[in-house]
């Protein structure tokens, strides 16, 4: 019994080994480079609230939207064996609906915000259902199916709000995007925690994980065991929709304005990368949400580190690419099996030497 659970834990650790190591190396690197990099100070913001500030807080805060989308992307990847590249564009649409509702009244009130949140989630889910239908019912490859909204999503967002860049001046919006008065931690961080908890509750109280993995690994066999693959795939897109909606609201509230051109721009590639860095198979099947979340923080920490090193904005992406090559190659099956063989050898070597010692 004991050895069984130990084995299970071991394999879980195995998948998270690469992202954990990458994270540790990045932390260590920053610590050596600048011992004050992780210093956390209490500062007073424009609204007069005392808030925590420092690179670490910035990293965790700025990675929020990415981390949330990466969670949803993990599910779609696992169930469909492909990725949704329209998350940024759908985020822009959802954000536009959110702002449209907020701007419809004279003033932004708690009521209009609640309505806005609901409409935003509904819109994102509806557009994701469109993607999901193409993938699950019409069996179009996810990347092709989501290419449609990827190309036209930001135009749709533009039609909703018009050309203007609406500003949202309200303490509620600031509380949602920055910090709630009296709480020194940025609100988006709580959003990540909340989405994470909700998802883990869903895994705890439903068979979502088992069904999703079964469909992702062997759709035909899953069907013969009474699982409806179409429904499971659609469900993964619905959940991704919810994640995209939350991420888009974080983006809108943080800037206190909407720009359909820049809201969540390029987030799709980072999200896919986060899923991959997390050790998840992009071909579907077994998955680990924690890995993807870690992947998101690694990507953000990399960006922040590079900026802190005064790397010019145009060069950041190139440096990022180099580090990512290393992480992805380190996590590749070839290197993994080499490492496993090496550790096996070391183990048997150790056994030999202890045996000799006894003699």
């Amino acid at each position, binding site marked *: 019994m004991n050895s*069984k659970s130990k084995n299970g834990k071991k394999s879980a650790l195995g998948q998270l080994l690469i992202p954990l190591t990458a994270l540790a190396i990045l932390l260590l690197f920053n610590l050596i480079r600048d011992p004050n990099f992780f210093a956390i100070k209490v500062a007073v913001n424009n609204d007069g609230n005392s808030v925590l500030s420092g690179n670490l807080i910035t990293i965790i805060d700025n990675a929020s939207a990415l981390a949330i989308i990466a969670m949803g992307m993990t599910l779609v990847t696992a169930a469909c064996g492909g990725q949704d590249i329209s998350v940024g564009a759908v985020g822009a649409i959802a954000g536009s609906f959110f702002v449209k509702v907020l701007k419809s009244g004279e003033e932004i009130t708690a009521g209009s915000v609640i309505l806005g949140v609901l409409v935003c989630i509904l819109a994102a889910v509806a557009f994701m259902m469109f993607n999901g239908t193409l993938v699950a019912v019409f069996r179009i490859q996810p990347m092709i199916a989501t290419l449609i909204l990827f190309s036209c999503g930001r135009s749709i967002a533009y039609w909703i709000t018009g050309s203007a860049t609406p500003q949202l001046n309200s303490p509620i919006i600031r509380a949602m995007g920055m910090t709630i008065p009296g709480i020194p931690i940025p609100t988006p961080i709580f959003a990540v925690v909340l989405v994470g908890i909700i998802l883990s509750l869903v895994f705890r109280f439903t*068979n979502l994980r*088992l*069904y999703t*993995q079964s469909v992702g*690994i*062997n759709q*035909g*066999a899953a069907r013969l065991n*009474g699982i409806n693959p179409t429904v499971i795939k659609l469900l993964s897109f619905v959940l991704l929709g919810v994640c995209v909606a939350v991420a888009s609201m974080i983006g809108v509230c943080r800037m206190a304005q909407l720009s359909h051109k820049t809201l969540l721009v390029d987030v799709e590639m980072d999200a896919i990368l986060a899923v991959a860095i997390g050790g998840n198979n992009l071909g579907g099947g077994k998955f680990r949400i924690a890995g993807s979340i870690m992947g998101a923080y690694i990507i953000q920490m990399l960006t922040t580190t590079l900026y802190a090193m005064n790397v010019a904005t145009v060069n950041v992406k190139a440096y990022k690419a180099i580090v990512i090559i290393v992480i992805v190659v380190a996590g590749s099956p070839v290197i993994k099996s080499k490492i496993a063989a090496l550790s096996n050898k070391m183990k048997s070597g150790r056994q030999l030497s202890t045996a000799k010692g006894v003699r």
Partner: protein
Amino acid sequence: MENRVVSAKELKASKQLDKDVVLAMRGIDKRFPGTKALNKVDFTLRKGEIHALMGENGAGKSTLIKVLTGVHEKDGGSIWVEGVEGEAHIHSPQEAQDIGIATVYQEITLCPNLTVAENMFIGRNKGQMVHWKDYEKRANEILKSLGVPARAKQELGNCSLAVQQMVAIARAVDMNCKVLILDEPTSSLDDKEVQMLFGLMRDLKSRGVGIIFVTHFLEQVYEVSDRITVLRNGELVGEYPISDLPQVELVARMMGKNLDDLADLEEIGQKKTAGEKVVYQAKDLSSSESKPFDFVIHEGEVNGFTGLLGSGRSESVRAIFGADRVTGGDVQVKGKKVNITKPHDAMKAGIGYLPEDRKRDGIIADLSVRENIILALQVMKGFFHPMSKKEMEEFADEYIKALSIKTASQETPVGSLSGGNQQKVILARWLLTHPDYLILDEPTRGIDVGTKLEIQKLVLKLATEENMSITFISSEIEEMLRTCSRLIVMRDRNIVGELTGDQLTQASVMKTIAGGER
């Protein structure tokens, strides 16, 4: 009885093989984490012989083949190949090919969308210009000389499986292979195709090729082989000329049992006479893949669909389970009318279905043994009622013990188990749901003799002790005669006869299949 085997030392001293030996493997060791897959195994292949490599699942046949073809690296021992000076070091399939070891796998590894000629020459011209015209000419010559009924320009996917297999062999032969490994080449062929393949094998044998033949079909071994090497639990049992080892003794050696233990091979249990109560009844049931048919099964009855490959027996049971799109018919389960249009409906009605193609339709390879066992029951409990980890572990434990499934732990991915054990896992999955009616489509295909027997015994036990109704399909008629009390014979997607009681003999089944009854 055993031939004297030239030891590794002697081989090293003489630095070359005996005249007629093309391949000698000595003291081969192979370890995998936690298990020793091969333990000092010797194997000798002579020129122009068909050498059957036998053993149950997990005996080490595949591992030995993979060591030889460079898929796995050996941990100890040495290999000598004719024409290679000193020991042969094989680190990759390419290196194996280069020294004349060719393999044709069970699953055809050619490209169906290319032509026959393209398949035969692809990847073989190292950096030279390709002259397809010449290749086509040469391909036609080889195909003709081997008697393979295919043309060079034909798309491979349009050929039958047997011909595809023969093209794969032709490719190997043209590469001047000395050692040809055929891994379960006949498992998806019908009798006529098997004969075609055997003809080709004999032809190659006369040309001096050494053939290693891996199969589960005992009769086929005796039909073509000259020699048998038996492995058990990763160790060599012995090498025998075919005439020295009768079939029963071969089975005994593979299983490591005495002949007495095998007395029950013939009578694995008493057949059950069916009860009165109708469990499942279909009228004019049809699906996208099957023509309308009537079918009935009683409580505690074991019946079976028989017929040639493609006669529609699998399609019929798929229609019953709702695996294909059901297009019509009235179905009653225990006297109540039910509508079964998808597998979930059938499961709710108390029907279980073990599919024909274990890899494609049965296992969820990356999931653990535990998850694979509880899957169907979990789905029946519903999306919002996950079982607790403890509950799952108890169920899995119970069935791993009951069916003696060999696995390192519950958490082992089912894909890493041997075929027979994978089949047991799927069987466990359905037994756990306690179905009233269980459909087993080819449960014994591609698994070892011992497990085959276990499964047949289990079928009879379930019918007698738990009153379960079972439909049992097997391409080995003996198995069906042993277990079924009623056989439904199919030909060209139609039911052409029903045999019970005294009619249940091999002769009458064959006759009905062939159409002699009408």
